[in-house]
């Protein structure tokens, strides 16, 4: 005879603190932004309802289209470089002993540097007159000037982001690699698997979960990048490195257009939400497909 286990609904009360904190930190501010996005805020006590007007203005703004295009290229480049590089670093790191600890500490150091300091470091590092990188490139014959050449500015921002954030991917991948039981490697050795086969059929599938987190984190972070390029290039030369966050800040703080800035924020939020949703489901389906193929 089986006895049905009573369902204890009191556990739901334990979720209440999280709900309250999410409400105050995310939901209420988001609702306020929605309110602002349909009004012309003339003063803190005076506003006029304008409906979809700001959305129309924002969605037809060619500067926003350019900033979105630059942002998509930047995020795609960040993912294309940082994910393989992070995995490669994790694979080449010592697994145990003092060398492993030393490499972990060295690798984590860029992550400990505040974002505005990262921008300042690279601003000095890349200057042709006093910076090591800029000086060396100039001496090697490259016509390098990140303050005047859009391509140089782009590459510098990209390299700076790779330096700052690839360690995060490497640390996540390293943790994932350490969690793979030794029995898998022993089985692969018995089968005479090559180094590539071990990576392709043992390590990569086992890394799927941590890589999914790494991809989502890097996508969201790169899509919201603001401080480093702001300090390094100020969005220039011209608007060459003006990404979405910088453009939003120009509108909200520089021009104090709260209505259009709120509409822009919501469009921005929806773009990130869609990209993360598509990427998450794509990676999940790739993993599920591989599992099906292996069990077939």
């Amino acid at each position, binding site marked *: 005879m089986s006895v049905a286990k009573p369902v204890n609904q009191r556990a739901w009360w334990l979720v209440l603190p999280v709900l309250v904190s999410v409400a105050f930190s995310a939901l209420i501010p988001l*609702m306020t932004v929605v*309110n602002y996005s349909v009004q012309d805020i003339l003063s803190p006590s005076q506003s006029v309802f304008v409906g979809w007007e700001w*959305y129309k203005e924002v969605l037809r703004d060619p500067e926003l289209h350019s900033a979105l295009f630059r942002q998509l290229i930047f995020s795609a480049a960040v993912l294309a470089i940082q994910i393989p590089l992070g995995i490669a670093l994790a694979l080449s790191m010592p697994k145990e002993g003092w060398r492993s600890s030393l490499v972990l500490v060295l690798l984590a150091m860029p992550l400990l540097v505040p974002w505005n300091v990262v921008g300042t470091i690279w601003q000095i590092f890349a200057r042709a007159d006093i910076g090591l990188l800029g000086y060396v490139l100039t001496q090697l014959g490259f016509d390098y000037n990140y303050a005047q050449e859009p391509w140089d500015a782009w590459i510098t921002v990209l390299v700076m982001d790779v330096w700052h954030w690839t360690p995060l991917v490497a640390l996540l991948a390293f943790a994932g690699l350490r969690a793979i039981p030794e029995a898998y490697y022993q089985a692969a050795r018995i089968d005479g698997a090559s180094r590539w086969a071990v990576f392709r059929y043992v390590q990569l599938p086992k890394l799927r979960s941590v890589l999914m987190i790494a991809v989502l984190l890097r996508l969201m972070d790169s899509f919201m990048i603001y401080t480093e390029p702001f300090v390094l290039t100020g969005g220039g030369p011209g608007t060459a490195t003006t990404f979405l966050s910088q453009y939003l800040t120009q509108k909200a703080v520089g021009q104090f257009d709260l209505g259009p800035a709120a509409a822009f924020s919501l469009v921005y939020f929806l773009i990130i939400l869609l990209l993360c*949703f598509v990427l998450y*489901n794509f990676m999940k389906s790739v993993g599920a497909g591989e599992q099906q193929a292996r069990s077939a």
Partner: protein
Amino acid sequence: MDLLSWMAWTAPVAIFFVCIALMLIGMTIWELRSPTVPRKGLLPLVTTRGDRLFIGLLLAAYINLAWTGVTDLTQWWGAMLGAVGLVCVMRWG
């Protein structure tokens, strides 16, 4: 209401949020009475009822944004198209 005046509430936005809240309450009651069964419909992924609501709302938001960005016609048509999209995703997604 002075406490909430900083949020700059307007009637249309309040109605919008009330609709969302009612939708979530309705979904919770529906889930308690008849727990969802994950299924694969027209969408290329297995979804629960909650997933389909999320996808449907996201679709409706994008339809409305596209309508605003592309046409000068009244937004009500965009809203109706978004609602139809939401219903289609919930039913056949």
